[in-house]
Every structure is written in structure tokens, then in C-alpha cells.
């Protein structure tokens, strides 16, 4: 089968490729934008910390505003729902101390994400 000539012109191929990429990207975004942020909290020796409060901040160029806080479960895991931002900061607050603020940057708003390294409560 031969393609019609206009389909081989770069004025068709380039816009069509771009449109396909944009469409694919939007489908990907739609499928993965539930706004879940998951992670774990551990102490300095690497043991999970239960009952630590984790704070979620939304980041912009100049300010970070606190949006949510949750408490870790027995395995030290936490899970935020309904995150609407594309760049957040997380910080754990346990009786033993606080962790550093960790910035998590996402590729689009409300992307599902796992924190790559657990939050470590410092002594």
C-alpha cells in the first residue's frame, strides 16, 4: 500500500508526531494523576518509625506552604492522598526528633509518586 504524498511531507509528519506525543502524554497523565504520595519514615539506625507525623508542603518559586499532615503506620509507611501540586516537600516529625525536608519534584500535577529514599529522623 502506498501512502498519499501529503502524508509523507514533513508538514504532516512533524505535526502528527507532535500531536501523537501530546496525546500519549495526556493519556499517561490522566492515568497516573491520582495525587498519591507514598513513603516511609525510619530512624537513624534504619528501623521504621511508627506514629511519626509527616508534613507535606507545596512548593513554588518563593514559598512553601503546608497542605497536609498524616501519621505513619506500624511499618513506618505513610500515604498522602489528593496532592494537587507538581513539587512538594516532605518532613517527618516524631517524638524523637525531626527529619530533613526532602523535596520531591514530579513530572506533572498530582502524579502518583513514591519517595525514593525514606525520611530519616535525626537524633
Amino acid at each position, binding site marked *: 500500500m502506498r501512502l498519499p504524498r501529503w502524508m509523507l511531507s*514533513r*508538514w504532516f509528519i*512533524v505535526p502528527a508526531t507532535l500531536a501523537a506525543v501530546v496525546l500519549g502524554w495526556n493519556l499517561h497523565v490522566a492515568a497516573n494523576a491520582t495525587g498519591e504520595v507514598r513513603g516511609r519514615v525510619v530512624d537513624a539506625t534504619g528501623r521504621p518509625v511508627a506514629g511519626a507525623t509527616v508534613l507535606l508542603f507545596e512548593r*513554588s*518559586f518563593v514559598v512553601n506552604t503546608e497542605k497536609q499532615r498524616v501519621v505513619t503506620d506500624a511499618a513506618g509507611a505513610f500515604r498522602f492522598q489528593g496532592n494537587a501540586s*507538581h*513539587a512538594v516537600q516532605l518532613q517527618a516529625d516524631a517524638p524523637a526528633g525531626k527529619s530533613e525536608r526532602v523535596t520531591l*519534584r*514530579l*513530572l*506533572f*500535577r498530582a502524579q502518583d509518586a513514591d519517595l525514593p529514599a525514606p525520611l530519616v529522623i535525626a537524633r
Partner: protein
Amino acid sequence: MRRGFPWARHAVLIVVSAIMLLPFYWVFKTAITNENIYAFPPRLLPQDPHPYNFVDVWYLIPFPRYLLNSVIVSVMAVIGNVVLNAMAAYALTQNFRAKKLVVLLLLSCMLIPFQATIIPAYLITARIGLLNTYLGLALPLLSTIVCIFIYKAAFEAVPRSLVEAARMDGLSEWRIIAHVLLPLSRPAIATNVILAFIWSWNSFMWPLIVTRDANMQTLPLGLARFLSYMEDTTGALYAFVCMVLAPGILVFLMAQSAFIRGLTHGATKG
């Protein structure tokens, strides 16, 4: 005719090309890294490249809004130029009494740079209530004298007999333009589209004066505004620059020959 030293010539040209391309690389490098951009010495290669600066620009600056405004204004300008200039050029190929006068008027208008009339142009736009509107942004760009003459030359190159034959067949003037002249003047149309696109896409001073509202700002204005807020402190500025330049570079690389022809044509005629 000039032979010998091809290597020397290549060497010189490679240096020139490097000078031309280096600023693009430097900005791109800064845009895709998260390093402290003020670290000294600056790194030549990007450190842990990532796309998050682009994400920041998309969400934290109303980039989609700027893009939309720019596209609306450019589309208006392109359509305006293609249609209005064709009409005016067609009129100029006809014989009528005041033709000499009109041509003279156009030629002398060409000597008036738009920048030289910026203050009354602003006052007029304010008086007709078009400040801060898309029409107000696009109106001065809707028709261009250079492009009228480009069209005119193309129309005059169409054999007269063809036009006469069409007229004998009872085609209306509109149809003669649309079905006889325009299909035979495709390079002129391309030139019109390209010139109107770059002029409106890059136009900065006029939107700066006419828009009052952040919602009406076009990309160049958004860029200048972002610069004035953040100064040179963030890699996001350079991501913004890359995003603004990308469409222009893409269109240029795709339509290079038409681009160059259009611009030189535009220059020699105006």
C-alpha cells in the same frame, strides 16, 4: 573559483558556528540542571540532567496562558496578512484613477517605522477602546506594505490572459483571486505567512504598551516579566527561554528555504 585551503576554511567556519551555537547550549545546560547556577567555576556539562525546571515553568508561570495569547495574536496576524494583503494587492493590479496616489502613499508609509509612531498609536488605540484586547494587539500587524508588494509582484507574474479568461467565464473577482491567482502565488503566500508569523510572534514593544493585564500578556512579555520578578536567579528562567524558542527553531528548520527567501524578499522590498 577559490580553491585550496578547504581545511582552513572549515576551521574558521567551525569556530564561527561554535560562537553562534554556544549561547544556546549554555542556556540549555542551565535549564536542565539543578545545580547552584552561581557555582564557580561553572560546569561545562550538565550535572544530573532533569526536566523539572520545565515542569515548574508550565505550572508556576501561566505559561499555557501566554502561549494561548501568543498563538491567538499570531493567528490573527497571519490570517489578516494573507487575506487583506491579497485583496489590496489585487486592487493594485487593476487600473483605476488614484492608483499612482495609493502606491505613493504606501511607499512613503514604508519609510515610517512603527516604533516612530508608538505614542500616538497608543493614544489612538486607547481612544478606540482596544487597549488590552486581542484585536488591539494584532491590529497594527494585520496588514504589511512589504507583503502587499510581494503579493502584487506574484499576481503580476500570472499571465493576464488567464485572468481575462476567468473573467469571461463570469467568475466574480473574489473567485478570480481565490481560484486563479492565489493557487499560482504559493511562494508569496508562504512569505506572507512566515513574515507575519515572526513579526507577531516576536513582537514585544507593542504588546508591552498595549496590555495592562497579566492575562493578556504574550510570551515575550511573560518572559520579560518573569525576568523582572526573579532576576537571573533560577534555572527555570532558562527553561522558559528554551520553551519559548523551541517553536520558532522548529518552524525555522522545517521551512528554512522559504524562511530565508521570505526574509530577504521582505528586506529588499522594504
